């Protein structure tokens, strides 16, 4: 199957704490790296989908965030659409770019995500994060994403479907992979003792299990097949799927990510067994275990066993979060979905250096955002394919 839409280039600004860098600076670096990767110039871009979640509350740039962020790099005149879908903003921008090309409107589109969460006042950053819910209902309740993930995990722990050590082990894996990623916010390995003894955040989660406040940007350039003379191995967008959150009547109903992944698998004509490498939305490292089940990588109750088997390590049958994931690579909210895409493109091209997960052909990204009635408010699943044979 040859995909109509291909990824011509990807780029990032390292994730981390950059007090001297503005949103424009972060954006410029990610876009320039993506253009360089694609062998294109600024004026080759025909349309932009710009993802950011908190620039209104944290920088006061409530409106025209993309137009403002992209002026420094000379991106003007072309349509720029601003996309906000909480932590799923980046993949939502990617999907809009894919759809614009499929609709025949555009040949070359940029999807870029940028976020600056360090503003010198942790309460302001956390307050902005809390707006990724229906504020008319949860206002002042004090529900952070840490609490949401903690509650999801406790359900499985108390049901005997996960052990506490799995939470610790997957966190160690996350940091071990992040230590191999030059773009990662956290580049040091951690021990079980460090994970267990780090500050309690929301039981059973401790500080080292959780993604942190972070600055960063990531970009992908998408092109209609055949319009560019690219020097790179072609990476096709095999499928994208999007879902919004819903109110579950019982816990037996599938999660938002499951519904979304099933749609993506169906469109791609593939199943979870075909995925060679995945980036999943582990805003808290143990969240990766939830997504093993929700994306079909294991049977319900099998997440701990899958982790222990080593199959999700770099070099395993299905490497999960070789980048270090949200927990270690970092989670600058609006940029995350495109950082997942950048990592997977590098993996599919064999350019991931010490964290290269073998010779993958099919890659999956799952990016979820916001929170409604216990479920993610938005979810996108993207399936990418390396079309050239490995030699």
């Amino acid at each position, binding site marked *: 199957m040859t995909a109509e839409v291909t990824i011509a280039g990807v780029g990032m600004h390292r994730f981390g704490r950059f007090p001297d860098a503005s949103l424009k600076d972060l954006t410029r670096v990610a876009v320039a790296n993506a253009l360089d990767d694609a062998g294109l110039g600024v004026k080759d871009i025909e349309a932009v989908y710009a993802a950011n979640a908190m620039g209104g509350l944290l920088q006061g740039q409530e409106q025209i965030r993309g137009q403002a962020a992209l002026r420094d790099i000379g991106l003007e005149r072309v349509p720029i659409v601003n996309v906000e879908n909480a932590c799923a903003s980046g993949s939502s921008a990617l999907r809009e770019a894919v759809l614009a090309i499929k609709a025949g409107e555009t040949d070359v589109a940029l999807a870029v995500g940028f976020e600056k969460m360090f503003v010198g006042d942790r309460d302001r950053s956390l307050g902005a994060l809390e707006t990724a819910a229906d504020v008319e*209902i949860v206002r002042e309740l004090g529900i952070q994403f840490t609490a949401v993930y903690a509650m999801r995990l*406790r359900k499985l722990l108390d049901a005997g479907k996960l052990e506490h050590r799995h939470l610790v082990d997957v966190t160690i894996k996350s940091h071990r992979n992040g230590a191999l990623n030059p773009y990662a916010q956290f580049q040091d390995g951690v021990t079980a003792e460090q994970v267990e003894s780090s500050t309690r955040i929301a039981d059973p989660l401790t500080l080292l299990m959780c993604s942190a406040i972070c600055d960063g940007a990531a970009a992908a350039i998408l092109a209609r097949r055949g319009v560019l003379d690219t020097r790179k191995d072609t990476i096709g967008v095999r499928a994208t799927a999007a879902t919004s959150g819903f109110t579950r009547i019982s816990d037996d109903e599938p999660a938002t990510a499951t519904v979304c992944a099933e749609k993506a698998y169906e469109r791609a004509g593939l199943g979870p067994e075909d995925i060679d490498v995945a980036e999943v939305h582990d805003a808290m490292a143990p969240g990766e275990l939830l997504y093993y089940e929700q994306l079909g990588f294991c049977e319900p109750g099998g997440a701990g066993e899958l982790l222990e088997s080593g199959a999700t390590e770099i070099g395993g049958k299905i490497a999960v979060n070789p980048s270090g994931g949200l927990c270690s690579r970092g989670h600058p909210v609006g940029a995350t979905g495109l950082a997942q895409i950048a990592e997977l493109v590098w993996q599919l091209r064999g350019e991931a250096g010490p964290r290269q997960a073998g010779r993958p052909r099919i890659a999956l990204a799952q990016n979820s955002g916001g929170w409604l009635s216990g479920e993610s408010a938005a979810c996108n699943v993207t399936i990418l394919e390396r079309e050239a044979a490995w030699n």
Partner: protein
Amino acid sequence: MELTGAEILGTLQRPRMDRERGCLVGSRCRECGIPSWPGRAYCFSCGSSDVEEAAFSTGGLLGTFTTVWVERPGLEAPYTLGQVTLADGVSLYAHVRGLAEDARVPLPVHLVLADGDDAFPAFWFEPDGAGEQ
């Protein structure tokens, strides 16, 4: 007939609790029976706009919880949040008080309303039998 918005109470005017009866109030679909708290204009399950105000039972099951150790403005840490499914089937997130250190879910809990209209949180849940042991 064109709607003006005056046909039903707006979301800010819709009651969320009934102090006299000591219970939470929301909506229930007349078509499929699915309840919602807070009440909604349309049923999220079947899409019907034929919904009525409903008072919910005060007892339910705590399905999961977490104790949060990060202070937030107006909220001293630690505090405990939980997901409760009331006997009527309504699921909601709320503060939980009086849980034992080694509490495990599912756990029977009941609603407690705060005194006064301005109290925060306006209500919370406590385990059944707490304070009697």
